[in-house]
């Protein structure tokens, strides 16, 4: 077994490869601001969104962000996420739009009894389309990365969507050099992914180097959890029905990705800083999306959701 060295990064000194990724992302954001009429930045509150927000502030400095940010709320996010979102918007003076699919909420769609597939379709995919249509955004900037999932590895940085927001993976525009084709036909829109070429580790190394605030749920703490599907589900409020034999217990838990709390499995960990997290990731044997029940249904779950207009 061959082990590579384990030097840690000095804070504030951005290594060359991160500088190049940063510059590429900044260039992509400026391209969006220059070429589109009505952009929006999709903000999921997660670590990737946090990095994106940071990059956007760099791209347009000393000006403010030239577009609003949009959060699609399902009503089932961790409470700490919502608090962090509102605090971030205040701290940075952001133009924050929060959208919830009220119709779905009225129908009582939830991740527990409706199942993850229906909940995602109605409260996330449908909700996103509603918000984009309502505000007439012609481009939305998202934090997806190509290393997350294999259908993402095939997606363009400037990715065309039909009038119904659907993605056709077989008919993508070739994307050469940095010459992005930003032209839209009537009612088409664009999804743009400035973090396409970042990996999960790059994100954490960058968060550590740039001291970017993230939701505390990413760091280990004693949290009330129950064991489900090989993961730890946090009992974040009293809406999570417990089986008769289930007793919440306190464990040192952190989350690699954040979503709706009943669908997001945590891992046991002692990482309490971004550098700890990066070090933990260097030795982990599980992929990032492992804790997300959304992809587990079927191998091509993500591609199908994306075709339908998911983030």
């Amino acid at each position: 077994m061959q082990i590579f060295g384990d030097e840690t990064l000095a804070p504030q000194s951005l290594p060359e490869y991160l500088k190049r990724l940063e510059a590429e992302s900044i260039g992509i954001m400026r391209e969006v601001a220059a070429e589109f009429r009505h952009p929006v930045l999709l903000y999921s509150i997660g670590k990737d969104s946090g990095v994106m927000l940071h990059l956007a502030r760099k791209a347009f400095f000393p000006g403010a962000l030239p577009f609003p940010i949009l959060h699609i709320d399902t009503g089932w996010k961790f409470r700490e996420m919502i608090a962090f979102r509102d605090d971030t918007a205040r701290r940075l003076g952001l133009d924050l739009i929060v959208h919830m699919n009220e119709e779905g909420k009225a129908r009582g769609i939830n991740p527990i009894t409706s199942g993850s597939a229906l909940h995602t379709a109605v409260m996330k995919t449908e909700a996103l389309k509603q918000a984009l249509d309502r505000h007439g955004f012609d481009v939305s900037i998202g934090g997806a990365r190509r290393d997350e999932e294999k259908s993402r590895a095939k997606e363009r940085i400037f990715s065309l969507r039909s009038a119904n927001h659907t993605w056709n993976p077989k008919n993508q525009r070739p994307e050469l050099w940095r010459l992005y084709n930003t032209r839209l036909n009537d009612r088409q829109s664009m999804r743009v992914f400035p973090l396409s070429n970042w990996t999960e580790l790059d994100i954490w190394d960058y968060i550590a180097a740039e001291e970017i605030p993230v939701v505390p749920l990413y760091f280990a703490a004693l949290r009330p959890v129950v064991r489900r599907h090989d993961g730890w589900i946090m009992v974040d409020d009293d809406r999570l029905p417990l089986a008769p034999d289930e007793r919440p217990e306190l464990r040192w838990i952190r989350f690699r990705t954040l979503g709706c709390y009943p669908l997001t499995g945590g891992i046991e960990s002692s990482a309490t800083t971004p550098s700890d997290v990066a070090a933990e990731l260097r030795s982990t044997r599980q992929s990032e999306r492992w804790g997300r029940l959304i992809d587990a249904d079927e191998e091509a779950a993500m591609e199908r959701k994306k075709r339908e207009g998911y983030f």
Partner: protein
Amino acid sequence: MLRFCGQASPRPGRDLLRLLTCGSVDDGKSTLIGRLLYECGSIFDDQLGTLQRESRRFGTTGDDLDFSLLLDGLEDERQQRITIDVAYRFFATPQRAFIIADTPGHEQYTRNMATGASTAELAVILVDARKGLLPQTKRHAYICCLLGIRHIVLAVNKMDLVDFEQSRFQNIAEHFSKFAAKLGEISVAAIPLSARLGDNVTEISARTPWYRGPTLLEHLHSVDVSNSGVDRPFRFPVQWVNRPNGDFRGFSGTVVSGSIAAGQEVLLAGSDRSARIKEIVTFDGAADRAREGDAVTLTFETDIDIARGDLLAKPGEAPEHVDQFAAYVIWMSEQPLVPGRSYLLRVGTRTVPGTVTALKHRVDVETLAHLADRTLRLNEIGFCNLSTAAPVAFDPYDACRDTGAFILIDRFSNETAGAGMIAFGLRRASNIHWQALTVGREERAALKDQRPAVLWLTGLSGAGKSTIADIVEKKLLALGRHTMLLDGDNVRHGLNRDLGFTEADRVENIRRVGEVAKLMAEAGLIVICSFISPFRAERRLVRELAAPSAFLEIFVDTPLEECMRRDPKGLYAKAKAGRLEHFTGLDSPYEVPEAAEIRVATIGISPEAAAEQILAELRGRRII
């Protein structure tokens, strides 16, 4: 059998290498990438578990893991066992982070390879040791070089299947070196390996004692792809003007070549305007210097009129600035390239209408032979002359990728139709100056006491265009107007008698007529043009040519059935009998105008009434 070395911590100086992998279908490309990712810790246990399940279900490697399943991300790809599209993979070691563009070996390889190669600094070309060099290997090497890749790794794979025989490897390596010498200045490293067993991939193999070179991974670490950027000329395409308030006016963009320091003078390419840099603004504080790859915002000591699309350089190092140049073009659309048609051309941050004026030759990528052709089809490569509606600043692609590359966008579908690499500016463009004339359009028109205009009648053959045009001209003449009538059939007897009826010839036919109509309008005339002109793109072109004279598109709208019934020239009958090809409405399309100024529906009205409708419109628009 597979070993795992964990995702590595970066060294502070870790840099980034972008590479491309190519090879034929069964050369073991996926296995090689899978092994690199796996050994560098970029594949996780749960992904491996999925891979084991899928290998049993769809795999082609018996009991072994089929790494291609890890890489083929789309549902169709996994089910049909083919790779459709470029995918991007990531792995890292302490010294370097790597981005791999993984391109399919067969279907549409040119388009996909060019896409992957456009951002790559190094290419790994796989060869099966049993088969040696294939025509495909040469094609891949040629396309890599055309796209500016200067470092090639010839990975001679499946050495285990030829008993690690030295002579086999050497033959292949020498054969390839000879071919590569024809491609220009490139560095080639040949490495014997077995992706399946791991020989010479990340660890040197005991089974190739005769091989003294590095492993593939060692080579990827050591190859120097830096451009020693500071010595190259400074190039800064202006991407976005940052004007958050009245006090701040900055120009944002990325330095694509060279470097610049605060206090230095920069020049706006294509002008004699220059200004001194006041500050290099970044979020992390003002920078003394901005180098190749840095995304920054520049402010100037004096006001200078700069916009998105402009290119900044240093005085004495100005790029070329012309409206005609020669370039290699790779065609990427199902719709063939039509010389003469107007596309949108994007170079740097600038987008202008542009036209391929001549296809000098097509390249046979297998033999590198130059072939004569009239068009480029999907995945074909040609050497072309192009002209743009306004001069653009550029460098030859070999000197700077970012300022020498362009894409062509179809103006109607908006798809990316082609990609190009500029070879050189055409001297005639910079040498033929526009002669300033004292007497202009206005003066000539004033003498005739009229407003010049182009009346463009379009419609199917037999729709009644010529008849109506003739009456319109008679009526204008009676009103004392100076006119000229250009008729489709008539110009084909003279000016355009060398043109046929293919799509390319139809486009050229309309382009010439558009130029003539423009000249006549400049002479102060009201020009009446009667042409089928079936394509929207060309009607748009003549509209743009005619400006600033008034241009009225007049759609003579007669249903196809009615035209066939009238058939004044007997052409429909001929076409239906198979004696006339490319006939509009039958086997060649007519694109109905979407926003014609005048639509004349001819059913149930006389040609006289149709002409009167047009005259009424001219009065309404104060042209007469």
